[in-house]
Structures are given as C-alpha cells and as structure tokens.
C-alpha cells in the first residue's frame, strides 16, 4: 500500500444558498481513503453524507455549491480541474452508484447499451469490444444468462438485478474508487445481503477502493474497514470499524448503537432524545450538544476539534480533551 492515500478530502465545505442565508451542509469535512480499503460513511438523513459524495464528484447542483476545501485524488486536486477534465475523471477514475436502481437507469435503452456507453464515452473500446465487455461485466456481477440479458430493458429486471447492472456500469472503466450511496437501502434484506457480498467480491477482483455511504450500522459492520460517523454536516468520529462499533467514543455513536433493538425483548429501547437539528439552525458549539447525555460547559463554546482516542481513532468531543479537568464518565471509553 502506498503512503499517499488514494483520495484525501481536506476541509471540504459545501453550502446551500437558501433564501434565509447560506447554510453549510458539509462543514469542514476531512478524511482519506487508502488504496484497496472500504471506508464507511454513516449518518442519518440530512447529515450531509450524500452531499459529501456529490461534492467529491463535483456534481453538487445549485442552490448548493462547494465553498472550500481540497479533494486530492492520486495527488491531483480535483477541485482545481475544469469541467472537461472532471468529466474524464467521472466514471473512469471515480464511479458513483446511486441508491435508487429504478431511476438511475434509462428506461429506453437496453442495459447492454448503457454499460457500453460508459466505455464508449471514455474512448476505452470500439462498439464491438464494448458490447463484448458488457456481457463479461454482467457475468461478473452474477447476472445469469448474461449473453441474452444484455438485451433486456431495465423494467424487465428486479430491483436487485438492476443494482447489479449499476455495479457493472460502475466497474466498466476499471475505476480506482467506487462511491456507493446507500446501494442497498431500497432492497429487501435477503437481496441486500447478496449485493453486499457482490460488492466485497468485486472490490477484491477489480482492485477498487470503496466509499460506502449508509445509515445502517449493520451494513457498516459487515462491509467496511474504517468508518466515519457524520452528524449535522460534520464527521464526529473516525476509526477502524472494530473499535468504533465495539468501543464507540463519541456520545452520538454510542447513542446510535444503543438505540438498535437487540437487548431483552419487550424492554424500552435506549432512545436518543430530541431530533436531528434543522439545516441552518445548528446549536452553537457541538451540534449534538442539546441531545447529548454527557454534555457539560465546554460543549456550547465552539465546535469541538478532533481529539485522538486510540490508534487511528478520533472523536470530535470535549470529553477527550486531554487538557480538560472534566473526566470521562464512561469507564469503557478507550483512550
């Protein structure tokens, strides 16, 4: 593994220009994806995880716009590229898989044509080669009888099969990075399991890195190497998946894990109080502060910076400020 990460996102800030003012949706987000790894970006709706993906692809539409930060892909700053150069990157170097397999495919073209199009647009193949590659890719994503299915239209396929087609399209140009935004959320649990297995296999087979965006900590536990937890536009905790899920540091991560049913049947669940703050109405200081069971004076002063809490593990929480007189109330918290 090279020292330089495949993608380094530095201080990414994406804002929406709304009538009431400019609202940060992604607020000073930094993370990196190393070659060959799967990073999970987990958060609730409105946490900014999808906008982070669109920002990396430079696909944010008005009223949104990227207001700051750098996107270093293989050492090159994507935010400095013009639209034409960026178009070369999309699909060829970084591919995006959307959540809704129903709307991401064009209903009037066969799935074979849509996969071939990706190759033709990037000048990777002749028509005949592209058609042959489409069949190979469909076979690779385990669509039975690929040679005839290649002539099917999207409506002839089930949701799970359509998601396989999208994965095949994403892999067509052999990108180095695939961003999958909630790739299994619209699917049934048994189909979800098959698609997650497929993503894992494809990652190994095509040597791609994966940014997996999801709200489901179960999917995270099964699929990723490292995880970044987003809340209200900020990454509040990052670390390798095992310590983050087994020994969560940020009170939000702890609350999310605790609220999942799994304890004694019939018991009340450990709910997080309150609701996700509205865009543009973030509390001062830590955005999770008003809902946090561990809040104290420092939490309202300013948004907390990253404090290291373990190997490769950090949390934006004043509980881990080494200079604070306040002691961590949770004996199980790792440092």
């Amino acid at each position, binding site marked *: 593994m090279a020292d330089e990460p495949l993608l380094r996102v530095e201080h990414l800030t994406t804002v929406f220009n709304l009538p009431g003012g400019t609202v940060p949706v992604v607020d000073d987000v930094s993370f990196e994806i190393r070659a060959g790894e799967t990073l999970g970006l987990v958060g*609730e*709706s409105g946490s900014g995880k999808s906008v982070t993906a669109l920002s990396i692809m430079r696909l944010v539409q008005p009223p949104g716009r990227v207001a700051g930060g750098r996107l270093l892909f293989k050492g090159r700053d994507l935010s400095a590229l013009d639209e034409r150069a960026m178009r070369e990157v999309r699909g060829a170097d970084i591919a995006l898989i959307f959540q809704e397999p129903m709307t991401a495919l064009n209903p009037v073209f066969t799935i074979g044509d849509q996969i071939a199009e990706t190759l033709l647009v990037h000048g990777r193949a002749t028509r005949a080669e592209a058609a042959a590659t489409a069949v190979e890719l469909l076979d690779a994503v385990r669509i039975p009888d690929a040679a005839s299915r290649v002539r099917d239209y999207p409506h002839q396929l089930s949701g799970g099969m359509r998601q396989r087609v999208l994965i095949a399209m994403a892999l067509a140009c052999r990108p180095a990075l695939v961003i999958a935004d909630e790739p299994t959320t619209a699917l*049934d*649990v*048994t*189909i*979800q*399991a*098959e698609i*997650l*297995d497929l993503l894992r296999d494809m990652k190994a087979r095509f040597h791609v890195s994966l940014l997996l965006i999801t*709200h*489901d*900590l*179960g*999917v*995270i*536990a*099964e699929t990723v190497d490292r995880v970044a937890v987003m809340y209200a536009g900020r990454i509040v905790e990052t670390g390798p*998946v*095992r310590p983050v*899920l*087994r020994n969560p540091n940020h009170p939000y991560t702890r*609350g*999310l*894990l605790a*609220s*999942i*049913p*799994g*304890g004694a*049947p*019939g*018991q*009340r*669940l*450990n*709910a*997080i*109080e309150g*609701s*996700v703050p509205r865009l543009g109405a973030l509390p001062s200081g830590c955005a999770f502060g008003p*809902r946090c069971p561990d809040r104290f004076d420092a939490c309202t002063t300013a948004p907390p910076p990253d404090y290291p809490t373990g190997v490769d593990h950090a949390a934006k929480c004043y509980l881990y400020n080494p200079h604070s007189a306040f002691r961590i109330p949770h004996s199980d918290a790792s440092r």
Partner: protein
Amino acid sequence: MPLVDVSHLVKHFVRDAGLFRAGTRVAAVDDVSFSIDEGETFGLVGESGSGKTTTGRCMLRLVEPTSGEVRFRGENLLGFSPGRMREARRQMQIVFQDPYSSLNPRMRARVIVEEPLVIHKLGERAARRERVAELFQLVGLDPAHLERFPHEFSGGQRQRIGLARALALNPSFLILDEPVSALDVSVQAQVVNLLMDLQERLKLTYLFIAHDLRLVEHICSRIAVMYLGKIVELGPAAAIFASPQHPYTRALLSAIPLPDPDAPRHRLVLDPASVNRAAALKEVSTGHWAAI
C-alpha cells in the same frame, strides 16, 4: 376468544388483459389464517411483495378481500354493511408507514387529529378541541404546536400526529404498517418506546407489519412470516428466532446485518426450488407452526 381472528383470507388482484396478453390473477394473499390475542403485539414480517401490507388492509376492508373471514370479537367483518363497517372501524385503526405522505399538507395538525371525531360526529366543538389537546400530550407532542402544518414537524413528530389521529376514537386494535421504517435511526427508538408505553396505558392490541426483523424480535410476542402471499411460519417470536424451521425464515434471519463486527456470519441463501409451496402449516413445537 382471540380479539382478531383471520381465517382463509384470500385477495386476488386481476391484471387486465392486454392486446396480446390474457388477463391474469395474482394471489397477493393466499389462504392466510392467524389470530391475535387481546393485549398482544403480533408481528407480520416478510419482504416486499409478500402480501403483508395487503393482509393488513384487507383486515380493515380498505382493500376488499376476495374471500375468507376476519372476525373481530367474534363477528365477521366481511359480512358487515358499509355503515356497520364504519362503526367497526372506531375499534380498529391503522398507522401508515410514511409520515410525509400520509398527512394532508394543507391541514393543520389539530384538524388532522380532530377529523375522525368530526366524521363520527363525536362531541361538541369545545369537547373535541379538548380531546385533541389531550391526544397531543398522550403521544408526546406539545399542544402549543396544534395550529402548525405537517411540514413544520420532524419525521418523528409527524408519525406521532398519525398516531394521535389513529387513537382519537379510542380504538382497541391498531394495525401499525412499518410505523418507524421511514424515520431516522436515532428517532425510531423514541417512537417504538412510545408505542410500547401506549399499549400498556391504553391496553391496545397491535398488528405490527415490518421488515426490520431486529425490531420485530424486540417488540412482538408472536410473529408470522409471509412469503409469496402465504404464511410459511408462525409462532412465538423467541421460538422462531431461536430455531427457524422454514427455509425462507432461515434465509431471512441469516441475512440480517448485525452491528457487531465480530458476529459470526453464516449466510443461508434460499433456493426457491427447496420451498414446497403446497406444504400445509404443521405444529413443530407448542404454538410454533411451519409449512415444511
């Protein structure tokens, strides 16, 4: 006597004939029988297209069943006249999945919750207003927000409005159709806790329709697993989760992603050919039935 008794419920949807195609009948619900005891939470689980939502709707006759019986306190609802059915619905209400589309965006929260009282001509205006404020408090909403419109509430609060509306007529039986699946993870637990509290306080009986098996295991006493319109397994939740008998149930349980990176994973893939569609439910242990 069970509170609700569904027997041999069938619902066929007819797909119209096209120019080159004969009309076809699809059995969305195919000979489904189960009963729910007073005070219990009965879970109906299955994937999309399994017929669980149609079964729930048939029980309230929101969708007219093709055949079968739905007995509520011993009386078969399917023989009721429209007027009698309207009366019966005071006892049985439904909460829908999506709190974004199930509330009329042009109506204030107070009007939404009050509407069932107006339809059933219950109480004077002042008494109704008092009842609405009481319902708001019951579901954990601030009565100061009565005059707000749905878009001014969060998803969790909207689902509470749907619940207040369903409770307005003091029903004894609620059908909860995926009541928390559209909500944020951190808010789901609040609504689940509220449902459990309300059940205790108001002695409610629930039919809980869901695809989230972790949640179903947590709150249901008994469950039925539906697959392609049929119940393939039925019994105490603890027994089914501990020892699933039907191949579909086994595949379904093995596919649940657990938020534990060290959990053992033994994924079972269902081979549709291994399912004997004609098998009848038989009792494998006390109260635990499987179509194997």
